[in-house]
């Protein structure tokens, strides 16, 4: 990415979740790549993400981490925020996305159902994903659901 253009993302951890380490590191890394990162930190309800979107309509994406297994309940208000037009940019989620040590792919589907556009495993996937989302957007001028 050229250093002249300004790219901003909104970052945070889900409402009931206080795991901070990955959030710190992802913010660092994205800043290192030249992004402006509005980092809302841990324990961030959907309402706070929506407010940040309103403040930063240029945001390319909302990036939400969740480690504690509560992502579904924590994003419960996401459909409403979406419907109300308060969060219009793509929503990316990553982390540990259900309770328990055996994972059921249906838990990821449930996230898509809540209006999550993209589920990523590795923070290293963020840059290519953001680039792709942006080119999709410039092409279509509208948000497209992207499979994970």
């Amino acid at each position, binding site marked *: 990415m050229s250093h002249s253009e300004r790219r901003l993302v909104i970052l945070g951890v889900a409402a*009931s979740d*206080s795991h901070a*380490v990955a959030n710190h590191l992802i913010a660092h890394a994205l800043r*290192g790549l030249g992004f402006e990162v509005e980092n809302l930190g841990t*324990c961030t309800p959907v309402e706070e993400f929506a407010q940040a979107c309103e403040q930063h309509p240029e945001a390319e994406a909302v990036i939400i981490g969740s480690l504690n297994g509560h992502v579904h309940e924590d994003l419960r208000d996401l459909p409403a925020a979406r419907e109300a037009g308060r969060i219009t940019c793509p929503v990316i989620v990553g982390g540990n996305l259900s309770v328990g*040590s055996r*994972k059921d792919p249906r838990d990821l589907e449930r996230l898509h159902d809540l209006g999550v556009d993209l589920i990523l495993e590795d923070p290293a996937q963020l840059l290519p994903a953001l680039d792709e989302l942006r080119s999709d957007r410039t092409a279509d001028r509208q948000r497209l659901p992207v499979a994970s």
Partner: protein
Amino acid sequence: MTKISYLPGHSGSPGADTLPPLAESVDYIGSLGKPTAARVLMDARDAGRVAIQPRCGVGGHEEMKALLRELEDQAQPDILTLTIDSHTRLKRFEQALRSLNRAPADLNGYPLVSHGYLRGRDINESVTAPLEIRHGSPDARILFDVAVASGITSFEGGGISYNLPYSKAVPLAESLAAWHDVDTVCGELAGLGLIIDRELFGTLTAVLVPPSISLAISVLEAVLAARAGVRCISVSYPQSGHLVQDVAALRAIPVLARTYLPPGVDVHAVLHEFMGVFPKKRGNAEDLIFYGALVARLGGASKLITKTYQEAFGIPDTRANVDGLRLADRANSPLLDFVKADEERVADELAWIVDEVADIVEPVLAAPDTMTAIADAFAAGRLDIPFSASRYAKSEIIPKRDAEGAIRYLSTGSLPFGDRTRRHNSDLLKGAGSTGPVIGSLLTGLTDDINYFPTLFREMKREDSE
């Protein structure tokens, strides 16, 4: 405190609307015919063995009972745990209740407040070991009241250690006041003849926490707790992964207790098995679990909180939890008396740790009002933790593993360390291949240190080797 102690239950709590008076709960606990957690800890220390305790909590009531019973049946832990879900920790009782009603398996712990104290008692009566509540609540007053009414004799947390790692926007003054209330009730209960074990969460953010940070914060919380009347304090310390450092840190706990606490308080050292990024391969995870237990033994801990080989993946199933407990208990083997740490190095490390703790806590304790002094010190960075979840700590200090793996300070931020300590730390880091705080290499260095065990077991490559 009496007002808070009998706060009317929140909406939706099936059993908590009217909690019984403290004296009734004390009688109830007496009638249970099981030892208190404090007694179990004392007995373990006297017997020279490390008491073993799992982490465990699931949403549903019957599931929770079944889980505890199976753990007890299969692995006989000395103390059992009710791990509380993240909603309840943050007083998001409504969300906890909704998950409980809709999909209890979606909860990462047992929402005791939503279940209510009668169910708490039901759980208590279905197992023979005493229970501890493990959570992460900046304001645990309601939870504590329900716990006492449930007959539970051990309660983890503290005004700093259950705030900074566990929430974003709770001012320290608030959480310290809330925990002061909890500790005051513990004092009342002691007056009624019931000693509650109050474990302080020295683990903090768990990842690369320098021992003197963990211990300094525990000292401050312990001083506050003792002043409020708490009589049994467990100081937990998170395994760093470096043998000498960990043994020294555990052995520093009684030393610090003698220095900073009044004599009437019983203090136990507790080791939390490695709380950072766990290796993924079962054998490697098990190596780490056993190693942690051995460290607890060598450090003279009264208690060990165990992990499981599923740690890297998610909340463990019962079988894995049982296996973790059994494996850890092997380190209590009478056949391992010959295993020793390097006593000279431990003594040296211990002296440095005690000095660092003194540097950190003594200015705070010298101030007229300790709670205010704590909040101010965090605001100024004179107290600090790495990777804070909260805005109310600066996270300016930068931890780094030295060449041997011990956790040192790459930057001491605004900690009130003397030159001697600062020099010692930078000397120790000389061999660590650290190029100083250059942003890119700082991040890869940090990532390598965070992934210390997966890297040690060759599950991952070092980032800085690429």
